[in-house]
């Protein structure tokens, strides 16, 4: 599974972090960090993360 976050759109809301902490994290400065190719077993969590992003910045590319 491939995850792409449009960093021009992302405003570091961090909602994705709670839905899928294995894949998304905020740095100490509050900037988003993420795993670009997470394990397939995390798909539902990553879908949830994409859903809760207020900017709809997260795309899952299969």
């Amino acid at each position, binding site marked *: 599974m491939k995850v792409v*976050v449009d*960093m021009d759109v*992302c*405003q*570091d*809301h*961090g*909602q994705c*972090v*709670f839905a899928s*902490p*294995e894949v998304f*994290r*905020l*740095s*100490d*400065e*509050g*900037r*988003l*960090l*993420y*795993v*670009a*190719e997470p394990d397939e077993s995390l798909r*539902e969590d990553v*879908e949830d993360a994409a*859903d*809760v992003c*207020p900017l*709809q910045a997260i*795309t899952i590319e299969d």
Partner: protein
Amino acid sequence: MSTMDRIVVAGASLGGLRTAEQLRRAKFAGEIVVVGDEPHMPYNRPPLSKEVLAGKAGFDSVAFRPKAAAGDVVWRLGSAVASADLAGRTLTLADGESLSYDGLVVATGLRPRRLDVPGPVGGRHTVRTLDDARALQGALRPGARVVVVGAGFIGCEVAATARGLGAEVTVVEPTPLPLVRALGEVLARALLERHRAQGVRFALGRTVSRFTGTDERVTGLVLDDESRVRADVVVEAVGSLPNVEWLEGNGLDLSDGLLCDEQLRAVGAPGGVVGVGDVARFPNARYDAVARRVEHWSVPGDSAKHAARTLVGAEQEAFAPLPSFWSDQYEYRVQSFGAPGLGAGDVRVLEGDPAGDVLVGYHDGGGRLVGVVALGGAAVVARAAAYRGELSSISAGSAGSAGSAGSSDFSVMQGALS
């Protein structure tokens, strides 16, 4: 429950879309029909008072991208549900067609309340839909005199955006401070100062008595103290009304949205009717048994997941989302987690200072932290998020134990590191 061949979703916005998607995730294999009165596919509303209204993002940027799993959903757009016969499991659409269902999702959201005072109606706007935002954007020219009535979140955001576009902005608000009901006094004052520093004028503690103008076009307002404010554009941001009229006559409690139980089932309805999103009034088992409507963007998504599982008959605990809300005004963000409203009696500054970046905590009668709100930049918003673990541990009756969000090991990381 009898077999379900068709689930109809009324309302084609965030709540409706997410419920359709979640029904597929919950392995519902029957037909899903989403009926929406707007002509558009579901789109995201928050940018309508922020980036999109400011012209920083295009109107096409707000469209949601429905998941592939929901690719076979039937979208009936531009058609309102006119009435429902829940006993007969049939809806009647505005064009007279009837649509039968085995499961019904009520996701018809809210519409803006309008001011009921005398005067012309031309030049008076609200901001709920894409079409509303388009119409308002065309009127927000530099130097335009814009009067925003109502200093809630949408009113404050529109004021900030209009100011950013060079308009002359006045906000009229009946309470003594903007957003004071939602955030309490500390943050309300801090936000008032920020708006004033940007040049926004406030008429606080004032209501609108009438609009003045010519040829059905508003040119000014008269307030309850007989003071006058000139206006080229008026934005009414005075709250919302739930879209529930189409459900009348079925013995439901529609007094403030659709009353739902802890599984989001409509109270008083036959089986197979659930409420989702802004229109639903539901108890949050995390706090108490009182049913409330919650106008936060996070609710349609959370409630869609729960309601979809209820409809397919899955076993699950009572609905207990952790509320979260944000608002953007100028370069500041307001970020809320938990239920500040339940802790309005004991508000403390946890970090920072109201003149700068600040984090405020809301505590219940027992001194337990029930909500946090950050105001400022990305760093303080991230600090608010650090309390999420503690706020998540609250459940009705629990003493509430502290615990912070654990960090995990990252093998590959990328993103905005600069």
